[in-house]
């Protein structure tokens, strides 16, 4: 069963929006965390179901262990041993992903609305793009997310986790793309009829080409307007 689960899981990592085909350090750290937790969970699942099978199929098998020991070992020791390091691991991982001030060279302002995304680049002369996010490769970028109407959520699964775009609030998410290329992002908070269509393209440029590429993209989209 466990092997089957693993096989299915491994076979299904890919896809343009897959959290498991990480293309940035944050998504990578979280994907590693997932694999660790999956392995641990599979072991605990096998243990619980194995015990259930044993006590049913071999009556009397577990009766030599006193009731108190059953409860202490399974109910207190087992979760204690597993959860304490897990919580610490998650805390450290989470801290590393935080947008600490002064450590990102780019800050991009994102505004969600029903049903499109607007991206502003204060560091690049305040140019603006709609539904296409341009990023420099290999450097941390802080994304400041807000909304003008209802709650949306900004999510590029291959780079990092999501952050909600809440009207009246500005939330900051740290992302970094490892390699230049084309990626996809989407809204992950239900925001009305157009919610499934609220996707955006992410174009990652080599860091030294970024300003030029962004200026060109912004200009050409202005012409189109």
């Amino acid at each position, binding site marked *: 069963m466990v092997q089957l689960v693993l096989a299915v899981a491994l076979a299904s990592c890919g896809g343009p929006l897959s959290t498991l085909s990480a293309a940035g350090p944050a998504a990578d750290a979280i994907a590693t965390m997932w694999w660790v937790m999956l392995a641990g969970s599979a072991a605990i699942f096998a243990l*619980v179901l194995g015990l259930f099978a044993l006590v049913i199929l071999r*009556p009397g098998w577990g009766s030599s262990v006193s*009731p108190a020991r059953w409860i202490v070992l*399974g109910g207190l020791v087992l979760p204690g041993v597993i959860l304490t390091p897990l919580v610490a691991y998650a805390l450290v991982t989470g801290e590393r992903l935080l947008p600490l001030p002064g450590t990102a060279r780019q800050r991009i302002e994102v505004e969600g609305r029903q049903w499109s995304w607007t991206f502003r680049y204060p560091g690049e002369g305040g140019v603006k793009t709609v539904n296409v996010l341009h990023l420099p490769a290999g450097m941390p970028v802080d994304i400041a997310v807000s909304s003008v109407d209802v709650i949306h959520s900004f*999510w590029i699964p291959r780079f990092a986790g999501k952050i909600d775009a809440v*009207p*009246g609030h500005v939330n900051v998410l740290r992302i970094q793309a490892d390699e230049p290329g084309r990626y996809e992002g*989407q809204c*992950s908070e239900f925001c009305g009829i157009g919610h499934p269509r609220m996707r955006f393209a992410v174009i990652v440029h080599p860091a030294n080409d970024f300003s030029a590429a962004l200026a060109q993209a912004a200009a050409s989209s202005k012409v189109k307007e």
Partner: protein
Amino acid sequence: MSASVDRPPQRSPALRLHRQLAAIWATGPGLQRLAAVNHSVIGLRFMATAFIFFAIGGVLGMLTRVQLATPTADFMAPETYNQVFTMHGSMMLFLFAIPLVEGVAVYLTPKILGARDLAFPRLTAFGYWCYLFGATILTGALLAGVAPDTGWFMYTPLSSNVYTPGMNADVWLLGVTFVEISALAFAVEIIVSILKIRAPGMSLDRMPIFGWYMLITALMMVAAFPPLILGSILLEVERAFHLPFFDPTRGGDPLLWQHLFWLFGHPDVYIIFLPMAGVLSTIIPVLAGGPLVGYRAIVVAIIALAFVSFGIWVHHMFTVGIPHLALAFFSASSAIVAVPTAVQVFAWLATLAHGRPRWNVPMLYVFGFFFIFAMGGLTGVMLAMVPFDWQAHDSYFVIAHMHYVVAGALAFPMLAALYYWLPLLTGRMAMNQLSVPAFWLVFVGFNLTFFMMHLTGLRGMPRRIYTYSGDEGWNSLNLLSSVGGFIMTIGFALVVIDLLAQLRYGRRTRRDPWKAESLEWAMPIPPAPYNFASIPFVRAGPDRTAPEGLAASLARGEGYLGFVRNGWQETLGVHMTSGAPEQLIVLSRPTYLPFYTALATSVAVLAMLFQFYLSALAAALVVAGLLVLAGQSAGLNRDYGPLPVGQGVSVPPHTELKGSPPWWALIFTLIADGTLFVSLLFGTLYLWVSAPNWPPAQTFTPNLGLALAAVVALVAAATAARGSQRSISAGGMALGWIGLAAIGLVVVIAVVVGLISGIVPRPTEHALGATAAALLAYVTFHAGIGLLFLLSNLLRLRAGFLSSRRSIDPRLTRLWLDYTVVSGVIALGLVSALPALVRSLGT
């Protein structure tokens, strides 16, 4: 009426006693069914109605699976899909899961605790009608195409009148709140019944484990529902009257809604799970043929679970922008919740290990539960880890998790319970030929449907999308989920056929087919409306009562109350902890009042829905009138003193005792009310501290004179209520005191309304004004209810229901007014302090 009271009660042979009791307890035929108040009747109605909504909700779920089976499907329009998925979630949680749990509790609790009924039969009935009418309104909206369409957790601002202008969201807010009234009524009733109405000798440490689970569940409901009820009221007020509690452009905050919703929403998961865990803790020992292992550990675990479950709601909000260290706290507490759950799981395993388990249909479902719940619990721990949740949140991974937990923890134990207790209802056993394949279809279908969703979620599929383009890598997983959904549906259909077949063709069974040792098997099969012809004395520990010999003896009337008297519906009230007989509880007879009151309530709800606010107010006044009227037929209209209850014991009727059920009911009602008030205070301070667009351009100068006048009038009213209590206890009429209290309350209302009109910014302009108005409205409302208490006191005094011994009414009034004073002083104080607070730290 009182002829037989002074004579020693007569022993009757079993059949004669049965006929006498049945004549008193039976629900009438035909239209008189609307007057039913019996817990067995209402419990069955609750469960049957819940199953109907399970079927409707299930069909809605299947519709979403049809739409999502293939990319770019146009099976449903987006507008329809949004209504369908919203109603699927809302129905399954609010119209199926909670009412089902209530039905199980209403039906089984008195039987397991050795009682004849719950404490407030008319309230049971009222709760059921509220549920039925509220659910009907929601279903009607679905048929009319105006069902809620903003997701079952109704996030603002999407659900505000700006972005959802139709009545769709109002249907949810009003309909669900209506159903929640029923849930709160249920919770108060169950708590009081478990604490006060058990078989004599059943001290708390001898109470069946099922009773503990239901007690903790009901206590959790008392604390968990008020935040959602408050949130729903505030959002409805924002939608209808434009007070900006959640509108960020006017000083509100959409995150406040999320806090209030999940303050309810997370404990709600355990409110659904705990009763089913209670079912498992009851039937696993029976199937294992031995006692439950770790009774005390389980009791401690579920109490701990109840507390911790109120400290983890923020794990639904890891992506809204709360500081990481705060998230880490909620992450750790969410992980800690695994401990009490693991204690229960291993107590069950140890119970099986120390017994000789029998393999049968209920056990098959116990296996299904172990498999699915273990998986759901493990993904729950994963989601509690903040970084992983940043990825998985709002994706299909969460859908998979919550179906494994909620559906797994509810559906499989529920079916185990059905197969286990149906012989009690029908006197027949299931036929394995159909039951076993039905189980495997449900089990395989369930896992196929929802296991795939873990993977679709990890591959980035967000929840609540009606379509996808097909190049995301989600196609085959979605198709498999949909196929699994159909297999599961066929399985459920087979279960229904199996249960119907059992009703008709099942093998007839003797009493206690599972060799259980709990009291519900010590009664006739199917149970008589009075449950026990006489009430047993419990001598042994929990669930060790050996029904076999006991049942016949009880049927012959050899326990307590094995006779009839005055045509009363009698049951025994006991001391809360020791279980010593304490009072004779005389229950109310069948009446149409609950039906009419619920009907009037639904008229009020419908009038609000169609924005006929004056009609709504009129209907609300009718409801208030009916509630006062209900008080005119409660209790006894003369003093009796101690009455014999059998076994040489005499106890006074509940009307002549201070710790009678109404007293405790009001205490727990006030705890719920207090939770709502604390939520309102939290909301006020939350908006001030963290909402955008504060402070407002200008703020009012607090009118300290008026506020002080209101406080003085409040205290005067409460003092007068004390005077009235003293006067009635001394045998007086207390008319002057009651009048004085009423005048005090009228003054309070007038002054507070004056304060509301002086608020700047106006309540519609800024959240400061809105929250101040809400706090003051709270005071006004409580003063108004206080007037109803006084009116009821007056009427009942004149009708002879009160005497120096029967003085519960003025004590209830005093308690209510004491609460009104305390909450009123806090509310008035906060409103007066708000402008200064805003000025000092407002930015």
